[in-house]
């Protein structure tokens, strides 16, 4: 479904991604793990065309997309939940959700998706007319995920959904991610520092180090891998 081939991305003169190739198949949950500054977030930003790659090509359903504008990427069904949630603080919860569905015209289906996210996160329904900036960190993460779901994504890119959340909440968020994947068949590409949890819900994983992919395997094998255990799982 998504294929990266030899992607190189720069911030000015600094090369953040040094030629990576990876693949996400339809229906999968794939995670990208690695230390701080390895280039994980940049990878997602390259896919979303916020920081377009300088070299290499990105294919979505075998179509090259690396020259498209960010809104065209969203229109194709690739939607990102960025690190740090990025809720619109002055928009209400409902308006934040409306923003997710900005490019859609199918009113009925939007209504159904709205019911679906309120079913996933009932708290958001209670806070519907509250400003997004007044929500707690956990609620904001729920809203960020819901906003992305309102775009009816084929491929959901998630950047550090566990960041800054209480352990119990992290557990809940990950269960929902799995649920979204199985219930609506949304393909998920997940970037996480919390390797342990990410590998538990993922089908496959990639390990990234200083701009390169160093290892890839099924999630179960990565969990057993000695190097991964030592470097990322703290055992």
């Amino acid at each position: 479904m998504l294929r990266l081939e030899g992607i190189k991305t720069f911030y000015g003169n600094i090369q953040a991604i040094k030629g990576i190739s990876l693949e996400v198949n339809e229906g999968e949950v794939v995670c990208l793990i690695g230390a701080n500054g390895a280039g994980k977030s940049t990878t997602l930003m390259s896919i979303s065309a916020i920081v377009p790659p300088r070299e290499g090509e990105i294919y979505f359903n075998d179509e090259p997309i690396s020259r498209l504008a960010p809104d065209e990427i969203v229109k194709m069904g690739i939607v990102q939940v960025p690190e740090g949630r990025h809720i619109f603080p002055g928009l209400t919860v409902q308006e934040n959700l409306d923003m997710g569905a900005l490019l859609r015209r199918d009113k009925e289906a939007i209504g159904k998706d709205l019911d679906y996210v309120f079913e996933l996160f009932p708290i958001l329904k209670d806070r519907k007319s509250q400003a997004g900036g007044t929500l707690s960190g956990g609620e904001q993460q729920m809203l960020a995920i819901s906003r992305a779901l309102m775009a009816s994504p084929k491929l959901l890119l998630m950047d550090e959904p566990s960041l800054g959340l209480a352990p119990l909440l992290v557990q809940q968020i990950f269960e929902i991610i799995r649920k979204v994947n199985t219930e609506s068949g949304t393909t998920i590409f997940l970037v996480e520092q919390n390797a342990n949890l990410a590998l538990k819900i993922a089908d496959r994983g990639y390990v990234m180090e200083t701009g390169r992919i160093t290892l890839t395997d099924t999630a179960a094998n990565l969990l057993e891998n000695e190097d991964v255990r030592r470097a990322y799982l703290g055992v």
Partner: protein
Amino acid sequence: MDFEFFVNLLFSGLTRGSIYALLALGYTMVYGIVKLINFAHGEVYMIGAFTTLIMVSVLTILNLPILAIAVIAALVAIVWSAGYGYTLDKIAYKPLREAPRLSALISAIGMSLFLQNYVRLAQTSDFLPFPRFLPTVRFLDNYDGLSSSQFIIFTTTTVVMVILTIFIKFTRVGKSMRAAAQDRMMATLTGVNVNKTISVTFLIGSVTAAIGGILISAHVGQINFYIGFLAGIKAFVAAVLGGIGSIPGAVLGSFVLGLTESFGAGYISSDYEDVFAFIILVLILIFRPSGILGKPAAQKV
């Protein structure tokens, strides 16, 4: 210093406030989304007035009723000014979008000087009489306190504000504008075409500025190439006063400023009329730097 005098000052303050508000909207909306003080904004207001004057002169040949001429001329001028606002962004600001903010600010000041002097050269540096084409409002005939043109300025401004509020609050483009102002990257990630949204913002700001320029010129009865400068600076003060970036703030700031000027000139001294705006600005910057309705800039940790 009787009651009638007070009422006169009140209405004159509201009129000024209306004009400032029409201009301040452009400052505040553009600042909200691009974080740029568009110093050439007052020039758009001036160009709106000049274009109307030229159109009126041309249309007079056609022997149409004065109201028809006024409406056609104003509409042409509004569209024309909107074109100026749009082009201004495209040639002077868009290439500097990623540059330090100071560069764009200098570019804005440059555009302001350029447009003023361009109109001076292309037209004249003298004051020109402007047709007082605003219709008389019958029910005000027996009342001296409020003139027809003041009444029309105030109602037009109110209507523009209501339409704009509905637009910003409920339409797709309005929501995109607010989202882009609050978090540009995230707006892009939800599919907002930020460049298009910025263009729309410049268009709307220029339209309201042109409406202001036309109304005040028809009220005062004369224009020259320089009218946009002081009006622009004062509307900018009004926007800062209310909290730059906030639309209700700009409107509130404009009326506070308009009324202060009017009452200050009436009760203290009209020699200091223009000073009041800047006294208020200094006070606001000392005691409430983020403005009346502005939010203090959040420290990112």
